[in-house]
Structure formats: C-alpha cells, structure tokens
C-alpha cells in the first residue's frame, strides 16, 4: 500500500521529492541512451510499465487472510535495471494515483523513493550478486522480488516514522511500531510475491525464452537449458 495523499507533512513531502528527483534524472538519462541506441525499446519498456501497473493493482492472496498487492518492481529491476525501473515506476505511481486513487501527488516523491528506487535497487543488488553464481535461476528471481518488496515496505515505514516520531523513544520506537504493523501482512506477502514472480519467470522461460535472452537477464545457455528442462 502506498502512502496516501495528505498523509505526510509538507516538509517531508518536499524532502522525499528532493531525494527522488536526482535518481529520476539519472534514470531519464539512461532511458535516453537506451532509446538512442534501440528505438524498439520504447514500446517494450512501455508494456513493462503497463504490466507493473496491472500487477500492483491486482489483489494478491495472502496467507494471513488479508489481501494486498505485489509491487512488481523486482521483475522489472531484474529485466531492465533499477534506474530505468525508477522512471517506469514514477509513471506507474502517477497513473495509480490518478486512475485508482492509490497514493497521491504530494507524496509521489516518497512513494517513488520506496517503491521505485530503494525496492528495485535492493532487488537488483541481490540479482547481480547471484546472477553469475551457481544459485538456481528461479531462486535468484524469487529472492530479488521478495527483497524488493520487503525493502519497499521497510522504507515506507521509515518515511512514516520520520514524519511521526514517537513521544517516547522517538524515531526508532515509531519505526519499530510501523514495521511491526506492516510485518504482519508484508512478510508473508513478500514471500508469496517472490514465489509468484519466480513462477511468472518460469512461465516466460517455457513459452517465450527469447524475451529473456534479448534482455540478457541470465546467460543464454542457462535460459535455454531451463527452457528445455521444463
């Protein structure tokens, strides 16, 4: 769940915008470079954005019985890298606030930092660390997506705790409380999202492995071997 419109005080909304903007500028520079070298990439990036929008708008069955939604950014970070993902995510978050009233405009900076920057960066870091090792490809995707989801919610808790520190214990106490509340649904949800996106990845390997080969997500031989095993 994103932070909603009006929930952060003005100064915090501005601070998160200030943090998000340089990352977005870097993402846009990368986007321009990609589009300059491969014009066909634009529609493909576009459909990924559409996919993230749909995915993060779908209700996900959670083992706690509650319903929430995956972020979908882990898979995008694995396929396109974290900076391009931040630009795609910023657009998706804008659309979600205007199409579904999820999130908001003043808090867009804060939501971009949590869902579009820190989450994908963490997921991408895990993926890069495990990509060329002997670790199973699907497990790598599972871990990258689950960690991206978890980090998103850790940063959301951080943003709320910084804006509303506790009277006793200050920021840390407030952070622990917000984390505790999120943990009830978010830890099982992150695991389920990891499993779901690893299964999605497997589905793509089986049916359209050339997509993943083109994006150079994993070495060709690894993808082909996994595709022929299935």
């Amino acid at each position, binding site marked *: *769940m994103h932070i*909603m*419109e*009006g*929930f952060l005080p*003005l100064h915090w*909304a501005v601070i998160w915008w200030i943090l998000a903007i340089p990352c977005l500028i870097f993402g*846009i520079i990368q*986007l*321009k470079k990609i*589009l300059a070298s491969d*014009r*066909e990439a634009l*529609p*493909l*990036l*576009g*459909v*990924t*954005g*559409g*996919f993230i*929008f*749909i*995915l993060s*708008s*779908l*209700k*996900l*069955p959670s083992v706690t019985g509650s319903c929430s939604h995956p972020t979908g950014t882990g898979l995008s970070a694995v396929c396109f890298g974290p900076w391009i993902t931040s*630009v795609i995510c910023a*657009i998706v978050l804008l*659309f979600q*606030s*205007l*199409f*579904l*009233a*999820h999130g908001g*405009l*003043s808090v867009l900076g804060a939501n971009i930092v949590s869902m579009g920057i820190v989450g994908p960066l963490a997921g991408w870091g895990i993926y890069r660390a495990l990509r060329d090792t002997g670790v199973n490809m699907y497990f790598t995707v599972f871990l990258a997506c689950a960690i991206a989801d978890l980090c998103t919610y850790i940063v959301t808790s951080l943003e*709320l705790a910084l804006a*509303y*520190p*506790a*009277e*006793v*214990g200050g920021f*840390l*106490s407030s952070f622990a409380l917000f984390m505790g509340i999120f943990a009830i649904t978010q830890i099982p949800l992150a695991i*389920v999202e990891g*499993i*779901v*996106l690893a*299964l999605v990845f*497997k*589905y*793509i390997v089986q049916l*359209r492995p050339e*997509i993943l080969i083109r994006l150079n997500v994993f070495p060709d031989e690894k993808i082909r071997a996994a595709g022929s095993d299935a």
Partner: protein
Amino acid sequence: MYDELLEDIAQENGLREVNTYTKLAAGLGGILLCLLSTSFAAPLFIAVALSLALLTIARIDAKTYLKIFVGPAIFALFSVIVIILISGGGEIFWRWQPLPWLSLSITRVSINEGLFVFSRFLGGMSSLVFIALTTPMTDLFAVMRRARFPAEVLDLAMIIYRTIFLIMSHLVLVYRAQVMRLGYRSIRESVHSYATLCGAVFIASWESGEDLVRAMEARCYDGKFAALGEGGPVRLRPALAVFSFLVISAGIVVATRHISFM
C-alpha cells in the same frame, strides 16, 4: 481493482469540457492548501467543497465516489490510530508501556494530531480525486508537454497508458476463465493461478508491444509521438469559481491556524 477506472469516469463527467488548467488549479491548489494548513478546519472545508462540486456539478455517482475512498480510508485510519498512540503531550487520558522503549498513550495533543492528519488526508484525497475524476489523462499529457517534460518520458507514459487498457481486457478474460475452472479454490491453487495469469499477461503485453513497434514503423515513426490538444479555453465562470474557492480556503487556513479539535 475497481470495475471502472477513474479515467473512464473522467471521460464523461460534467466538468469534462472545462479548461484543464482551471481544474488543475482547483485540485493542486487544494492539495497545497491542505499541506499548508495547521488546523483541521481548512482541509475539511476543502474536502466538503470539492466533494460537493464532484457530486453536483461533475455529476459523479455518490456510491462510486464513496467506494474510491474506502480502501485508502481504512489504511489511513490504522495509521492515524498509530499516530494517536505514539504521539504525546497535554492531558493524558490513557497510558500503557508494554516495553521499556515503547510507550502508548492517548492524550489531548495526540488526538488533535491524529484528527488533523485524518482531515488532511480527506482534503488531500478529495483534491486528488477531483483531478482524477474530471481530467482525462490525455489532457494531462498535453499539459505536461507544454510544461516541457522530457519527450522520452512522455512517450513512455503514453505507451504505458495505452497498454494498461490493452492488458486489462486480456486479464479479465483469463481471470474469468480461471475462476470458472475453480482456479482460486485454495491458497496453493490461487498462487499457481495468479502466477499463470501474470505470466500470460506479461507475454501478451510484450506481444502487443512488438505489434506496436511494427505498426509505428509502418507509419514512419521518427521517435516522437503526436499529442492531442488540451480541453477548452479558460472561461470566466469556472475560473472565478475556482479563484473564489482558493481564496476562501486560504482565508480559512490563515484564520484557523491556532484552532484545534479539543
């Protein structure tokens, strides 16, 4: 997800033909004034004024309008309860210290803080929903282009916008088929069906992207998308109404800056 996107309503609402900048001034002005306000009064006034404008002038169905607020309001309510419990100050009504580093209390100041945050949420959400329900995305694209947003980002946004509707219909078809075949009977089957659904949608969206490339190439695509113009011209009555709304709201922000709920 809603059966109907807010965008669908925005295409048919009673304020559809009002100038985009006029509507944005009301929505963005409302958000800014909510954030500048230090009391609950101005955000509540903004919430009531914009909600009335949506329900009467824009002719939005009241049930749909309430439905939009339910999800975010539940999350806001939980968060406000946490804020009330962790904030302190003033007369203490209830206190509990479950851990040495964690003290929960309900005080006069914390109730004021919680209600203030909730009213700011209501004001902010009403302003956001006002933009969402009255201004179609195509009009916003035109405004963004005039505001010199990077062309690549705008083109990407337009493709994402188009793809959302393409994928949506595909997704509904697959999902209905899965439900008819009892694909969501248990947690295990739900996870499997959901993954299949996401995978099918990813591949379908990818293929639609490839089709789009071919279609654009066939029409001499040179890296730039054409954008439609933005709405009608600025008219006196709506502009005056928005100006009055903003002036009254700003007046309330200033006049009520020291007022608290309790």
